[in-house]
C-alpha cells in the first residue's frame, strides 16, 4: 500500500499575515498606496 503524503502548510497563517501586512506597509511607504479612506 502506498503511503499517503502528509500535507503541511507552506507557511503558517501568522506568517502569511505578517507578509501581507509588510507588503501593504511597503506599498504605503513608497507611495503605491497614497491614502486609504475609512
Amino acid at each position: 500500500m502506498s503511503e499517503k503524503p502528509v500535507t503541511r502548510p507552506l507557511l503558517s497563517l501568522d506568517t502569511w499575515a505578517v507578509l501581507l501586512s509588510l507588503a501593504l506597509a511597503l506599498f504605503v511607504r513608497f507611495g503605491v498606496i497614497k491614502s486609504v479612506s475609512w
Partner: protein
Amino acid sequence: MSVQSALPDLRESYPPHAPHAVPEQKTSLLGLVPGILLLFVVGYAGKFVEHAINTYTKAHHITFPNIEYVLWAIVFGIVIANTVGLPKVFRPGVATYEFWLKAGIILLGARFLLGDILKLGGISLALVAVAFALSLAFMTWLGRAFGLGAKLTTLLAVGSSVCGVSAIIATQGAIDADERDTSTAIAAILALGALSLFTFPLIGHSLHLSDHAYGIWAGLAVDNTAEATAAGALYSSEAGKYAVLAKTCRNALIGFVVLAYAIAWARKGLASAATEKQLQNKASFLWSKFPKFVLGFLLISLLATLGTLDPKLYPHLANYAFLGFSKPQLAALGNLSRWAFLLTFAGVGLRTNLRDLFKQGARPFLVGALGEVAIAAITLALVAGADRVFHL
C-alpha cells in the same frame, strides 16, 4: 514519508474543532473568494447602518447613543449564521477572519509608538502574570470541585486564563488530551466569548471606565483575540486599540504556558512521545508556539516610531529616520487596519452558533462561566488598581 506544501488550511477555525478533526479536502485560493466577499458585505452593512443612523439622528435633532458598526456587523453575522445558515461555498472564506484579525493587529502597530507599547505593554504583562496565576489556580480548583477530568480542567484553565482557542489547541498537543475534551473546552470558551461581547461594554459604561482602562480590562479578561478586539472596539476605537495591546501581551505568553504544562505532564509520564521529543529542544518548542504576528506588530510600531523621532533629541537614530512613516502614511496604515478588523468582526458574528451554547455539557460550561466571572472581577480590580497608580 513525503511532504507536500500547501496554503494553510484556513477552515481550521470554521467551525471551531479539535485539530485532528480537520476536514479532508483542501481549499483553493479561488474557493476563499465568496466567503471573503460575504465578510466584506456583512461588515460594510454594519458600517452603513452606523452611518445612516448617525446622519438621520443628526438631521432630525434626535439624541441617540452612537452604536459602533462593530455591533451591527456582529449582529448581522449572528442572524445570518443562525437563521438561513452559512452555505458551504462561503465557509472557507469566512474562516479567513482569523487571518484578517492578525493582519489588522500587525497594521495597528502603526497607531502605537514603541514607547507606549513598552510602558503599557510592561504594565499589561505584569497584570497578565498576576491575573494568570490567580485564574489558573481558581480554574483548577473549580474543575476539581465539579469533578471534571484533569485534562479538561487544564484545557479550560489555559483557555480562560491565557488566550482562548489557540491556547487550548496548543496545550492539547502538549498534554495529549483527547478530542472530546478539546472540543468541549473550545465550545465553552467560544460561548463565553460571545456572551462577553454583550456584557463587557455594558459593565464598562456602568462603571464609567476610561477608554484606556476598559480596553486593557477587555484585553486581559476576554479570552479569544477576535472577541477581545471586538469587545474593546464596541466601547470605542481607542478602547479597541488598548484591548489589542493587552491581548497581544497575553498571546505572547502562550509559548511559556504550554511549555510549562508540557514539562509538568512529561514528568508525570503523561505526555505524548511527540511532545517528549519536542521538549528536548525547549527554545525550538517555545518558538514553535510563539505567535509570530506579535513580531510584525512590533516591527510596524518601530517603523512608525522612527518616522516621528525628533533628530535633535535622538541624533544617533537620525540616520534611520528615512525608514519611518510620515503622518499621512500612518493614517493610511491605521485605516487599512480598520478594514481588516471590519472583515474580522463580520466573521465573529458569522461563526457564532447559538445552538452550540446549549448543546455542550452543563458542567464544563458552568465551570467556564464561573471561572470567567471570577477572572473578569480579578482583572477589573487589577486594572482599577493600575489605573490609580500609573494613570492608564
